[in-house]
């Protein structure tokens, strides 16, 4: 297949962006339609790629290479494997629905969509890059539009949150950058030629000390984005402040960049380093899961609940990474996808409510299901996904993560702790999650009708697009997980082979 489908997926938003630049500012509907069409093209191509992806063959597919800076072995080389393909699809879905979730945007529409499309270009770029340089480049492209999007169109301490988010992400990425450069230099020395190609760099034998050091850098760098405790604070604040589509993209996709980077670069290149630091990740992820969920329980703002729930859910992804085996890594990637869809759904709905009610304070709501039954249903489905109900995508993912970490026989801290105990603690998160999610559902949507909110209209027309698409995705992959897991596993298999081939080393504790 010669059509550069991945590049096309990435460039569709760029084309849309350029077109929007040409459209006069008052033609708001045209701008929105342009954005919708651009993202729809990406979505269709992403689905096409997903379908065409041959997971029997596995490996990287849809390759495209263009020499870029030969002096440093930088190539524009793209391709997806079973790990990145779902992420591309996720991004396409979330941005497409995000555009519709912003349909009622009236403030500075043109700039909004320009920045939004800029942001998503970066995200696509990360997921399709096979070249570390471009990987990092795209990674950072996403940050600044985010700042402006939150800063201009946000709410609730938006300037503070935007700045906080930006600085956290950038400081984090600083560490990742050091790691990437160090890897490149080490690789160039060992290979005898300069290259940023991840696959080629993966063939280098890095010595243990180097692996430990660089993996740690990556852990900080990508961990901030995940976000790993205690580097997570940008995320609730950022989520809360961001406008709907940005929250969706941010929680839905951007956080996944961190986990994806950690797996794709960190674990894949430095399996021994990963083994060394895995116990630390495992312990921190428990904090993420339990602590995050408990904090979510006492939040008073709907978005804060979801913000902390993301902290908690991404903890599962970390657990999947920490356990470093096939099941858990499959689960981690699946969870990235599932959480992305689920949280995008949440934010779309909360945005819908907020847009109409101008408040997100849970205590002021109650009985909204009377006025907004569709929103309530959507929110409930999102909540059920979030608590890991079978039949929805998240369940499969969480289940695999739990299975993976649970079956990992390794004791920590001289036998005081083990992966199994940590898994049990993590699994307890499903109870806490159920509690806070359903409490929120109850307090917001159930209870007697409040006439105060009688003016709220239920979601209708284009507002239904995000709800329907996201719910359908959750259910589709929930009922037929093999559509997803077969693909992911084809990407995980080489990774696990590499982990297993690596020296068995003890963890940090």
């Amino acid at each position, binding site marked *: 297949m010669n059509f550069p489908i991945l590049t096309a997926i990435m460039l569709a938003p760029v084309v849309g962006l350029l077109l929007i630049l040409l459209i006069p500012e008052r033609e708001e509907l045209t701008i929105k339609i342009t954005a919708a069409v651009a993202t729809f093209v990406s979505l269709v191509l992403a689905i096409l790629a997903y379908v065409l992806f041959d997971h029997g063959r596995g490996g990287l597919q849809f390759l495209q290479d263009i020499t870029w800076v030969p002096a440093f072995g930088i190539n524009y080389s793209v391709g997806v494997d079973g790990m990145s393909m779902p992420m591309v699809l996720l991004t396409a879905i979330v941005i497409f629905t995000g555009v519709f979730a912003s349909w009622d945007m009236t403030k500075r529409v043109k700039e909004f969509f320009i920045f939004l499309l800029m942001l998503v270009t970066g995200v696509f770029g990360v997921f399709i890059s096979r070249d570390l340089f471009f990987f990092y480049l795209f990674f950072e492209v996403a940050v*600044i539009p985010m700042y402006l999007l939150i*800063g201009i169109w946000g709410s609730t301490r938006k300037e503070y949150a935007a700045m906080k988010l*930006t600085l956290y992400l950038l400081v984090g990425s600083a560490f990742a950058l050091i790691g990437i450069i160090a890897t490149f230099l080490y690789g160039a020395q060992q290979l005898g030629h300069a290259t940023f190609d991840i696959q080629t760099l993966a063939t280098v034998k890095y010595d243990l000390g180097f692996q430990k050091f660089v993996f740690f850098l990556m852990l900080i760098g990508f961990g901030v984005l995940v976000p790993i405790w205690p580097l997570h604070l940008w995320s609730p604040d950022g989520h809360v402040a961001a406008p709907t589509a940005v929250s969706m993209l941010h929680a839905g996709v951007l956080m996944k960049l961190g986990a994806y980077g950690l797996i794709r670069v960190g674990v894949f290149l430095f399996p021994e380093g990963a083994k060394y630091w895995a116990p630390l990740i495992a312990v921190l992820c428990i904090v993420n899961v339990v602590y995050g969920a408990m904090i979510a329980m006492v939040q008073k703002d709907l978005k804060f609940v979801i913000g902390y729930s993301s902290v908690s859910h991404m903890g599962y992804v970390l657990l999947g990474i920490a356990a470093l085996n096939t099941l858990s890594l499959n689960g981690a990637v699946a969870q990235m996808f599932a959480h992305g869809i689920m949280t995008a759904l949440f934010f779309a709905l909360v945005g819908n409510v907020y847009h109409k009610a101008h408040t997100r304070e849970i205590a002021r709501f109650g009985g909204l299901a009377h006025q907004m039954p569709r929103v309530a249903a959507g929110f409930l489905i999102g909540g059920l996904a979030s608590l890991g109900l079978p039949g929805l995508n998240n369940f499969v993912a969480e289940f695999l993560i739990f299975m993976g970490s649970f079956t990992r026989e390794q004791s920590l801290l001289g036998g005081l702790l083990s992966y199994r105990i940590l898994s049990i603690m993590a699994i307890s998160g499903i109870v806490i999650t159920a509690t806070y999610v359903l409490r929120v559902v109850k307090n917001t949507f159930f209870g007697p009708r409040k006439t105060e909110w009688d003016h709220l209209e239920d979601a209708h027309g284009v507002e239904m697009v995000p709800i329907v698409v996201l719910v359908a995705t959750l259910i589709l992959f929930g009922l037929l997980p093999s559509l997803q897991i077969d693909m992911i596993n084809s990407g995980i298999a080489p990774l696990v082979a590499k982990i297993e081939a690596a020296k068995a080393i003890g963890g940090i504790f």
Partner: protein
Amino acid sequence: MANLYLLTVEILTAALGLGLLALGLLVPKSDRRGIGYVAAAGLAGLMVAAFSMRDASGVVLGGYVIDPFGTYFKILFLAAALLTAVCSFDYVEKMGFNQGEYYALLVLATLGMMVLASSGELISLYLGLELMTITFCILAAYHLNDAKSAEAGIKYVLLGAMSSAILLYGLSLVYGASGSTVIKQIGQTVAASGASPALLLGTIFLLAGFAFKVTAVPFHMWSPDVYEGAPTPVTGFLSVASKAAGFAALVRVFFGALPDLHNFWVQLFIALAVLTMVLGNLVAIPQTNIKRLLAYSSISQAGYLLLGVVSFSVLGIGAIMYYAMLYVFGNMGAFMAATAFYNTEGSDEIKDYAGLARRSPLVAAVMLFSLLSLAGIPPMAGFVGKFYLFMSIISRGYIWLAILGILMSMVSVYYYLLVAKAMYLGNPPEGSRPVRVAPGLQVAMVVSLLVLFILGIYPTPLTDYAMNSAMSFFMP
């Protein structure tokens, strides 16, 4: 003297400068705006000339080196001068006098820089330096009705003279210790005889002199004041070209004459780099005046460039070259935007930028993306430049320095974003009108913005040129 053609660019520059001077006397006052156009056209022509000579190399009169390294910097200076000239049309007209001299001085300062960048010999290097410095003193004080401008001028002239004195003392010591003023010969002598106390002391003095020019902490203190006081286009020019020239000369001297002492001076440069990056960025945070903010930012940029020196490698020099070039467009972009704003609003205060994105999307976008480039955020060129710089020092094992550098550039994002915040997040004041920008300046701004994008997305040709030019310093 068969190889005088190598001096084409310098001679033409001198001719342009003198011609403009003459033109200023001949043209009646009302038509002097045209002098600016002539200057811009001339500079553009010179750029073409310089570009056509990009592969030329040779030595003129035993001590003047034409090589790709020097030519690269010449193109850089000319680009900066061109942008400055375009940027100055309205500004100078607003100042209202002596337009002919202004552009002439601009061109002659460029000449000084060219000499500085191409000198293979200490005396012409010194004269180039002084031509540049003294011209800048005049330009800095050029806003004759503004007491701040005069203050900037006198600070620059007095401090510049003192730093010249210490530099000269260093030059004299190097001359004494090596018996020559030709850089190549000094290099050979030092390689043969090794280090000696006077030579090392001379090295320290040279370092102080150059550090002054490149605004490395703690030799930077003149720059915020001068930058703030000088006319805005001049500040832009001063901050990019004078600094780049300083680096060009620094590289020539330290890498050409004193490579055998690198164990010694690299330590000094590390200290300077650290101080420069930290202080420049930290002090930029509380600034409220855009020019002063850019001054501190420009100090911090010098810190990053010093990393290339620290690395003492081809990659390092190439990175300096690359970074210096994009720095021209990044910083000039910001200064052009600031000038455009000043021309209508008469203010340099960041708080007055509130809502600029609504009033003039172009100015705001140019400012934003220029600042992002300075911060090293992709896809702007600044990212690639910083990438090379950090790569160069990591390749030498200074990972801690790289971490510090990157963290500090994240601090810089903070204060750059404060500007972005004002422009994009703030609301324009009641009854404000769109910011009108002259067409020439608009074109220049768009061009510099495009260059930043292109260098960021496709850095290959410039990278190759820079790296190949840098190679000559490590040839036996």
